[in-house]
């Protein structure tokens, strides 16, 4: 089993568009992947391949989350999802119009 815990710095948290990207990335792995929002509701575990479960974790900027994967590609899955969140999800709504 591979697991990582870190703090989300993406200003918009994990709303619809980033959540879609997160879930699509997760779906690319065979491992079963679970996400928890340690800052809000430690007990609830969400399936990383379910957009609604991920969205309803209510992940906001500054929240600490945990990603846990179990399966043949568990380490790669955890790394990829961590990197995705670190990269800030390519937020287009933050583009200034000048």
């Amino acid at each position, binding site marked *: 089993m591979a697991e990582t815990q870190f703090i989300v710095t993406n200003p918009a*948290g994990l709303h619809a568009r980033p959540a879609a990207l997160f879930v699509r990335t997760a779906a690319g792995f065979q491992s079963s992947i679970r996400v928890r929002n340690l800052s809000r509701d430690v007990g609830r575990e969400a399936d990383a391949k379910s957009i609604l479960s991920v969205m309803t974790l209510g992940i906001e900027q500054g929240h600490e989350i945990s990603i846990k994967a179990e399966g043949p590609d568990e380490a790669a899955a955890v790394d990829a999802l961590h990197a995705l969140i670190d990269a800030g999800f*390519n937020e287009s709504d933050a583009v200034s119009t000048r």
Partner: protein
Amino acid sequence: MAERRCQGVGAAPGIAIGRVFRYTAMAAVPDPELIKEEAVEPEVARLRAAIEIARARMMSARVAAARSGGDEADIFDAHLLMLDDPALIGESERRIREDHLPAANAVAAAAAGVRQLFDQIEDAYLRERAADVTEVATQVMRALRGDTPPSAARTLPPDTVIVAEELFASDVALLDTGRVVALVTVRGSRTSHVAIMARAVGLPVVSGVADIVALAQDGEVVTVDGERGEVVLSPDPRTLETVQEQLAAERQAQARRTQLRDVPAVTDDGTRVALLANIGAPGEVEAALNQGAEGIGLFRTEFLFLERDELPGEIEQFRTYQEIAKGMGERPVVIRTLDVGGDKPVPGVSVADEMNPFLGVRGLRLSLRHPEIFRTQLRAILRAATEGDIWVMFPMVTTIEDVRAARVVLGSLVAELRAKGIPHRADIPVGIMIEVPAAAMNADRLIEEVDFFSIGTNDLAQYVLAVDRTNELLASNYSPLDVSMLRLIERTVSAAVAVGKPVAVCGELAGDPEAIPLLIGLGLRELSMAATSIPRAKEIIRGLRARDEAQKARARIA
């Protein structure tokens, strides 16, 4: 029928006169009648078939939304994922199998369960995403009942005004705007996906009209004012006449502006002003030409870098720039290099946590710190510039050293391309955005280093006034026409005019009817704006006398 006036919220502007078509699909889910054990599997199969119908509709909506541009297509990506979601669909199947609920009730119950989870979220934006769950569930329930989306109503006559409890983004994406002239809904807001998409296609929308579905009769004449949020059912002859006059005036104004397309923007006393378009993607070139743009005054290259997992390569950028240059022919195309920063991250470009991203590593500052990204983009621009008339522009320049550092990179690339024998334009015009107060103050020195200026009034105002223009609490403090701004603009224009180099404004002020006379008065002869603002700007300029405006402007800044 007597005249009835209803007040709602203007969600998308425009005036329309048409006949009511009430779209009443999915008014309510009937109370469940539990199904028998042997009917369970067929009911699950029915649910799955309905999901596939909903999926097909969402995919065509996605295609339609992508065609009309904008970010709305992304919404459907999230919706399509929800159609496969165990929390919604898996739960619906469980409720059919274990609770023996009919499919429609199972979906409604599963959606209600998910919405409850959303309700507990503290963040308002995320909480409101519950609306997306409702939309997806409704699409499945419509398919289950055999209801077609409003766009599929083959009987829709011309001049139809759709009246509904609620409409969804996918409904609007697929509407035939040749037949549907307006939308009126009970639920919805100015910021809903529906309103945004309707504005993009020029369809008037009034939302928040209580009881309108019950009040209106099918086929009844109705007038819709998407600006004031007014809906009048069976208008009296006098009311109808007034609205008809407004509609005619609106159409006339539109036609007059279209006629203006091919006439130049010249003031009454003979001063010629060039009107250019700001664009964000190659797909906007055609619209820019249709509105009469004499060039692209600002091509924002950010779209190439955002919403993707990897950085765009040189070839991809080269093709994009060349496509725009080809589309514009002989007309100039100003390409602005990547303008992102800590406030708008790009994958692979990490910026340390900044306390103050607007005062941080943005624009040229970021490009100079990421030479690989900067060099790739400049190489693509230099190579594409063999086509048409491409200019290059750097954003967020503060000092002369900034300009010189950028020019060193550009010079080394020209040398490299020449050595390798790759076709490029060595004498490409090089300009900078004037959007930092320091740059405006030093405009007379900076102009010695570059070929042109373009004033970015949005950021300049933000920095000069020390007001975040997205901060609603400070909305009244954001005054981009403050004397301080006018003085800096005048200073910048004078510096460029003194040495005979072009200077433009490419911020929102350039297309602002109130600002245009002042900008002309301050000596600007090039304005770059959203393509749709060009006809109105032309109309304004043709009614001005440059000499009078110069006098007024001088008085304002004296």
